[in-house]
C-alpha cells in the first residue's frame, strides 16, 4: 500500500482520501482514529479543562453523571455516557452499562467467571468487562 502525503492547493480544504478495494479492520481503525476528536472538555471543581483523549483511561456513569478517569485524576463531564461514547468512538469500548474504557489503556485481561473479564489498566486499576460486552472486545482484536 502506498501512502502519499502532499500539500493542498492554495484555498483547497485539507482532506484525506482513502482508495481501497476492500475495507480492512486496520484501515477502518485508522479512519476511526482520524475521525475521533483529539480532546474532550471536562470539569474539575466547575473549572473547564481540555483533556487529551489519549489521557483518558475510562469513563464511568454514576447517578447519571459521567466521570472521566485519567491516570491519577478524575474529572466530571457534562455529557451523558452514551454521548461521550459516540464522540470518542475508535479505541473506546463499552465495558459495562456504566463504563466505557480506552482499550489502549488496558494492560491485561483475566477471566472473572460467568463470561466476564477483569481488565487491569496501565495505572493498576481494575474494572470488570461484562459478559455482553466481551464479544465487542474480542472483535476489536479480530478474535
Amino acid at each position, binding site marked *: 500500500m502506498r501512502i502519499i502525503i502532499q500539500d493542498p492547493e492554495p484555498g483547497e480544504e485539507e482532506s484525506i482520501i482513502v482508495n481501497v478495494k476492500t475495507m480492512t479492520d486496520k484501515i477502518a481503525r485508522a479512519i476511526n482514529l482520524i475521525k475521533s476528536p483529539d480532546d474532550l472538555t471536562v470539569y474539575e471543581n466547575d473549572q473547564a479543562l481540555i483533556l487529551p483523549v489519549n489521557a483518558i483511561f475510562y469513563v464511568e456513569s454514576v447517578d447519571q453523571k459521567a466521570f472521566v478517569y485519567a491516570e491519577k485524576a478524575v474529572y466530571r463531564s457534562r455529557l451523558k455516557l452514551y454521548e461521550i461514547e459516540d464522540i470518542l468512538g475508535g479505541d473506546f469500548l463499552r465495558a459495562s452499562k456504566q463504563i466505557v474504557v480506552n482499550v*489502549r489503556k488496558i*494492560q491485561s485481561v483475566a477471566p472473572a467467571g460467568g*463470561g466476564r473479564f477483569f481488565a487491569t489498566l496501565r495505572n493498576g486499576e481494575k474494572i470488570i468487562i461484562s459478559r455482553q460486552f466481551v464479544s465487542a472486545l474480542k472483535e476489536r482484536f479480530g478474535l
Partner: protein
Amino acid sequence: MRLRKDYRGLILRALLGQMFKYFCIITTILIITNGIIARITGSEWILYAQDLHRFLLVALFAVLPILIYAFFESDGIILRIIHIGLTIVFALVPLLFMNDTGRATLITFLFIFVAIYGYGYYTEKRAAIEINKKLAELHLEEDATHIDKNET
C-alpha cells in the same frame, strides 16, 4: 503429563471457586422442590425430612453458603480460605439429611457443574491469553511511535 503453565490451577480454581456457589443454589432448589412435592404427594424422593421444621433447617443450611458469598467476598487469601471452608461445610450438611438417591443425584449435579464450569473457564482463559497477546502488540506499537516522535 503436566498442564501447561498457562492453565495450571485452572481446575482447582474452578472446583474451589464459583462451583460451590452453584452447588448450593442447586441444593436449595432441589430441597424446596422436594419439600413442595413431599407436601403434595407424601413421597420421599430426596429428603427424609417431611416435617416443615426439618425442611426449613436443611434449607437454611443450603442457603447460608450463598449468603456467605453474597456478603463476604474478599481478595485476602486467608479470608478466602475461611470463606471457602465455611461454604464447603455448610454445603455438605444437606447431604446428611438425604437418602442414597438424593446423594447420588447431588453428586452427579456436582460433577456436571464442574465439567461445564471448568470448560467455560478454560475457553475464557484461552480468549484472555489471545487478547493479552494483542494488547502486548498494541503497547509495543505505541511505545515505538512514542520513541519515533521523540527522536524527530
